[in-house]
């Protein structure tokens, strides 16, 4: 086996106090063709200097609107993409520069659950093959035990273990997502990056899948990076939350602090956009923060603070000096020159 020649990730683990996963100044620039016939190449700054850490068994929510770099960050952590710069330290070892072959033992520890349960499963392979391939590739169980382990895994995620011989198209969306989860679980990972795992599902199914993830987290102590744009789901599931805007983390902190006392104007705007259920019961609607304009192009982001073009607090300093991600409250960091929690509660009610 090729993997035995390489040091196993466990052996390289430093003390247990060190974070399981530490991302430092992660940068991902995609080259794109510029305008015109001879237009040179431009860079899409999808992720531009993202840093965070994840401890064992912890759940970090990564939120932000479409195109802010959440998914790219998730794919970088799992090394489906090669970062332009920065470090991804997994159990003390920087996996950012590793080659495909050296990376293989880490693939076992870092798994992904994809957003789209329809396209992310190969329609030409049976569910048994899909889940079993991971087992065989990393020699998790002896060859003759693969099938029984696959059946166990299907049972863990709430599928009929007798259905291992079926193809993905014979399952519903929620069931397919369970297959995706079983596949990720098969290798007993330490970290699962869940890239909007429920956003493609019906609301009724979302709750079921979220409960399944919750159970798995408790049972196996897996750390999650949970990428979502549904703030309610994140609040339900995550210990800490990081808010991204245009390739950068603008605010990060414990869940309750982020939801109850958001420091960054963008976080406040994001939270105020959550549908207000109080209206139905006759509570007067709260004031909403309406952001004007579109998200600027990541090819040519604004100078200084990237949010300044849409921020109601913006002043001259915002255009010249980029605000660093600093601690504004205990364990809560925000990148804003004028960071402060809103005077009134901006969230009337969040479904949780």
């Amino acid at each position: 086996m090729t993997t035995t020649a390489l040091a196993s990730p466990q052996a390289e683990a430093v003390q247990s106090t060190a974070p399981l996963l530490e991302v430092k100044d992660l940068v991902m620039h995609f080259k794109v063709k510029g305008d015109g016939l001879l237009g040179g190449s431009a860079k899409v700054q999808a992720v531009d200097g993202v840093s965070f850490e994840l401890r064992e068994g912890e759940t970090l929510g990564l939120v932000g609107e479409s195109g802010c770099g959440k998914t790219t960050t998730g794919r970088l952590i799992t090394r489906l993409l090669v970062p332009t710069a920065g470090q991804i330290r997994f159990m003390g070892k920087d996996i950012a520069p590793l080659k495909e072959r050296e990376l293989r033992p880490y693939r076992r520890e870092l798994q992904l659950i994809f957003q789209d349960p329809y396209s992310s499963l190969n329609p030409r392979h049976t569910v048994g093959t899909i889940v079993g391939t991971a087992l065989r590739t990393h020699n998790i169980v002896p060859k003759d035990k693969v099938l029984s382990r696959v059946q166990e895994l299907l049972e863990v995620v709430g599928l009929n273990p007798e259905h291992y011989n079926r193809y993905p198209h014979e399952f519903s969306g929620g069931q397919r997502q369970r297959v995706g989860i079983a596949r990720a679980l098969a290798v007993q990972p330490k970290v699962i990056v869940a890239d909007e795992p429920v956003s493609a599902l019906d609301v009724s199914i979302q709750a079921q899948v979220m409960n399944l993830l919750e159970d798995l987290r408790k049972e196996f102590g897996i750390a999650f990076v949970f990428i979502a744009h549904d703030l309610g789901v994140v609040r339900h599931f995550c210990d800490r939350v990081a808010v991204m805007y245009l390739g950068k983390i603008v605010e990060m902190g414990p869940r309750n602090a982020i939801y109850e006392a958001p420091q960054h104007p963008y976080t406040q705007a994001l939270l105020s956009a959550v549908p207000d259920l109080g209206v139905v019961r006759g509570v007067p609607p709260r004031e909403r923060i309406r952001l004007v304009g579109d998200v600027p192009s990541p090819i040519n982001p604004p100078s200084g603070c990237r949010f300044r073009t849409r921020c109601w607090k913006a002043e001259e300093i915002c255009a010249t000096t980029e605000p660093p991600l600093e601690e504004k409250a205990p364990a809560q960091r925000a990148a804003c020159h004028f960071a402060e929690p809103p005077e009134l509660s901006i969230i009337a009610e969040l479904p949780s």
Partner: protein
Amino acid sequence: MLTFLLRRLVSAVSVIFLTLIASFSLFYLAPTDPAGVVCGPRCTPQRLAEIEKTLRVHDPVITQFTGYVKGLFVGRDYTTGGVTQECSAPCLGYSFTLGQPVTKLIANALPVTVSIVLGAAFFYLLIGIMAGTLSARVRGTMLDRVVVAGTLTLSSIPYFVVALISALFVAGVILPGSEWVPITENPLGWAGGLLAAWVTLGIVNAASYTRYTRASMIESLGEDYVRTARAKGISEKRVVYRHGLRAAVTPVATIFGLDLAGQLAGAVFTETIFGLPGLGRLTIQAFSQYDLPVLMATVLIGAVALVTMNLIVDIVYSILDPRVRLR
């Protein structure tokens, strides 16, 4: 599966029967003069009348047609020059210009064409799929551009030009000279004699197959489940072949089925230029001499090949893609 095969068989037979009627009416009702051609330039009216009687050109069309169909299934007799020839089923008629039953002519020519076509298919599928896969994997690089430009150039040159150049400068120079040796007599001689034709037909077709495979492969490698496969940590080779190529060959298989059917009815240029006595050459000869029974037979073979290949493609499809149900 069984009901599928039965249904397809019924439709296949009806397609072939329709082709038969269409080609029969086209050839036999057309203002051609087969008797005159058989009779030759120094023809006497008595001789012409005799030949016309033998050819039964004055019989009603229906009688002629039923006679032809009867010959296909039970055989029939032909009288020419006072000698009666027995033509046993499947009798495709009698070529008066060549003085032989058509079935025998076809039986001699078909193995040549099948040998050429299958041998070439081996070359172009191998080269085309390998080059297309490679090109898709290194998409956008110099190598990919060279492959794309090369295949475009090769498919822009008319095939007969490539074949002529190859017949003049490759066959008998670099590769063994082109000739037909039955495989049953001398397998090595068979392969050697056909090699030049295989390589020529193979390389030219490989250009198109490279392009089909490349396009289809780029699409399949962009699928989400390919990313899933990478995330599992399986080797890149397995990702490309087990997940990417398996999906990418489906459209290529469809094109291949149709191409093969077309070529089986006669690889005209290849056979003519390389001097191989296949179906294509037989057809060309028959055309220039109004040899209607031979033409009818080649049309029929073309129809059978097409219908058969379509059926095979559908079955292969269901193997490649489990979502396809045969019913």
